[in-house]
């Protein structure tokens, strides 16, 4: 099942927008609440002030309570449009006076509370939503009736309740406008945040996108490309550097694979090409003057091919463990002598001297067949890669349990220390042209493989233009 690819830009943008939206919404709620309360308080305070003004106009003359109210001073109580309302009740609930604006409507339901002042919402007689302030008070006795004021105790004076109502729709409209304004600002802020966040992320991710583009340009055919490390942000520089290091290793490995494949192709195809080409030309023109040499060449190439195939098969069998190891008692000096005799032709051809170990060689425990093949390969290589008339030296170092055999030769074509890591690889040859001959680059691979079979160790070193290969772990009998 295909999975949807996640986009970093998308994820970061969504999360930032969500959090900003959340903060803005919370801020909007808090501000709206505070502002609503403030405006409502102001509205109620103004209404209460007006009520208290009317309260001061309410007097008690000893017998009855009177409201000394004149419409011309407060025209809002008789305005034809959006009038305000007041009603004055006595403590027993009887209506004493009401504003002209109430004249067409029945009296309000009398409401008494224990508080001195209370505020409530209501529906005005004309149907609008309104706000009412009620004040419970004891009407004052006029200053000129000082005697009366002294005569009638406060507790014996009548109680009165004055209620003033006015519409609250203008307040509600103001609040709605305010809420809309806050919401609009929040949306604008959100859009601005979204744009700036997207831009900031894009800018911030630019180096990452550049790395992505660089990587997308890299294919198995363009492994020599690298990601730019200069100018990278601190967080990405180590990633780019590490990636480049990995690329170097991949490139090396791939090149080794390619070289290996080319080398195999060369070692196998060249003798086949020689055989085929000689045979085709010989068959087509049998009267060719040196036709007999064609047979010799074909024979030589087929032997070369045979050697490569035989060595490859040995290597495969050895690596898959199908070769048996039979440990025998071996006289090392006799074995070395046998191997050297077998290579007498090569030694004479290059005028090479083989200097045998000066010390007495021990009797060891090993598989005679495989040890002979190992020594054959090592000594043959020492002869082949020495300059003409050179000396190949064999040195043996023994302790009570083990013997180490070293084969040393001067190098005609010097190897580098990097080459030492490669010499045991299959088909590796210093000569990249792979001149035809007895070498196919498998000998040391075979040695390594046989050495492993017999629990021995083989190691190569270079010193003063001399190549030395040592075979250690030979168990003394």
């Amino acid at each position, binding site marked *: 099942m295909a999975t949807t690819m996640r986009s970093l830009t998308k994820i970061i943008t969504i999360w930032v927008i969500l959090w900003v939206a959340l903060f803005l919404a919370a801020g909007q709620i808090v501000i709206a609440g505070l502002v609503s309360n403030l405006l409502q308080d102001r509205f109620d305070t103004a209404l209460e002030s007006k009520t208290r003004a009317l309260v001061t106009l309410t007097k008690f003359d000893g017998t009855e309570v009177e409201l000394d109210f004149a419409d011309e001073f407060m025209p809002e109580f008789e305005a034809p449009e959006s009038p305000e309302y007041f009603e004055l009740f006595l403590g027993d609930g009887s209506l004493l006076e009401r504003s002209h604006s109430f004249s067409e409507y029945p009296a309000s339901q009398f409401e008494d509370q224990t508080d001195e002042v209370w505020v409530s919402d209501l529906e005005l007689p004309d149907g609008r939503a309104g706000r009412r302030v009620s004040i419970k008070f004891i009407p004052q006795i006029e200053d000129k009736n000082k005697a009366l004021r002294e005569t009638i105790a406060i507790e014996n004076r009548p109680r009165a309740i004055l209620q003033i109502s006015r519409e609250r729709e203008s307040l509600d409209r103001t609040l709605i406008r305010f809420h809309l304004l806050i919401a609009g600002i929040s949306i604008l802020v959100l859009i601005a945040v979204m744009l700036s966040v997207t831009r900031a992320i894009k800018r911030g991710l630019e180096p990452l996108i550049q790395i992505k583009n660089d990587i997308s340009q890299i294919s198995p055919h363009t492994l020599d490309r690298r990601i730019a490390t200069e100018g990278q942000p601190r967080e990405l520089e180590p990633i780019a550097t590490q990636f480049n290091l990995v690329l170097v290793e991949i490139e090396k490995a791939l090149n080794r694979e390619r070289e290996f494949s*080319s080398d195999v*192709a060369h070692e196998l*195809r060249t003798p086949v*090409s*020689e*055989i085929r*080409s000689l045979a*085709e030309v010989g068959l087509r023109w049998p009267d060719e003057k040196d036709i007999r040499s064609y047979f010799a060449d074909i024979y030589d190439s087929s032997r070369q091919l045979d050697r490569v195939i035989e060595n490859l098969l040995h290597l495969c069998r050895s690596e898959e463990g199908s070769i048996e190891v039979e440990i025998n008692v071996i006289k090392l000096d006799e074995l070395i002598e046998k191997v050297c005799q077998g290579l007498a032709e090569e030694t004479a051809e290059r005028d090479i001297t083989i200097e045998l170990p000066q010390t007495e060689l021990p009797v060891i425990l090993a598989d005679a067949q495989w040890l002979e093949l190992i020594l054959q390969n090592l000594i043959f290589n020492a002869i082949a890669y020495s300059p003409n008339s050179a000396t190949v030296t064999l040195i043996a170092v023994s302790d009570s349990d083990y013997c180490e055999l070293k084969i040393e030769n001067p190098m005609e074509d010097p190897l580098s220390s990097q080459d030492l890591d490669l010499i045991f690889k299959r088909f590796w040859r210093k*000569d990249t042209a792979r*001149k035809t001959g007895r070498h196919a680059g498998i000998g040391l691979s075979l040695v390594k493989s046989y050495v492993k079979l017999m629990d021995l160790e083989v190691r190569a070193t270079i010193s003063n233009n001399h190549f030395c290969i040592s075979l250690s772990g030979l168990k003394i009998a």
Partner: protein
Amino acid sequence: MKILVVEDSKKLQKSLRAGLRRLGYAVDIASDGEEGIAFATTGDYDVVVLDLMLPKKSGLEVLQEIRRSKQSPEILILSARDQTRDRITGLQQGADDYLVKPFAFDELHARIQALVRRRFNQKSPVISIGEIKIDTSLHIAYQGANCFPLTPTEMSILEYLALNRGRVISPDALLNQIYDSNSYSSKNAIEAHVSSLRKKLRLQGVTKLIETRRGFGYLIA
């Protein structure tokens, strides 16, 4: 036609030299990259058959040097390297063809012929000059049902003049094209071959095919 074979295998050198000479080509051999560069950048070769894994200089280096020089032979890479990447690299660096070892000798010959045709802007292997047909693929010349009994050298001269139709070819140029570089043949040999060629053509009723421009050379108009 003159071919340079740059190959380090002595056995392949031997078979290619013998086979290609038998087919009427002049063949020079170079055994390593440096020798290949020296031959190819100084000699006038029609085709260079180039191995890639060579001593001293690699085949690709030889290829680059040839392409940098004033010589412009057709180059056929003949290599054991069979990977697509190797072929692409070889062709992109200026080779005209790529053949993987082991190869069929006939296929190599056919590819060399194709490269020669390309070199002379010749689409068909058969060159027609009036009633006369010269088949560069089968190396025969004929008129109607009459096949001219020409020797390989005479056939090579006729082919080369036909491929360069309208151009005067000097005896030196013919000498260079017909014989290997280490051959001891002289201009007199060329004159003798041209004379013999004319005689054989005359016997078949073909006259005035090859013109002589005194002091300059030969021409098929």
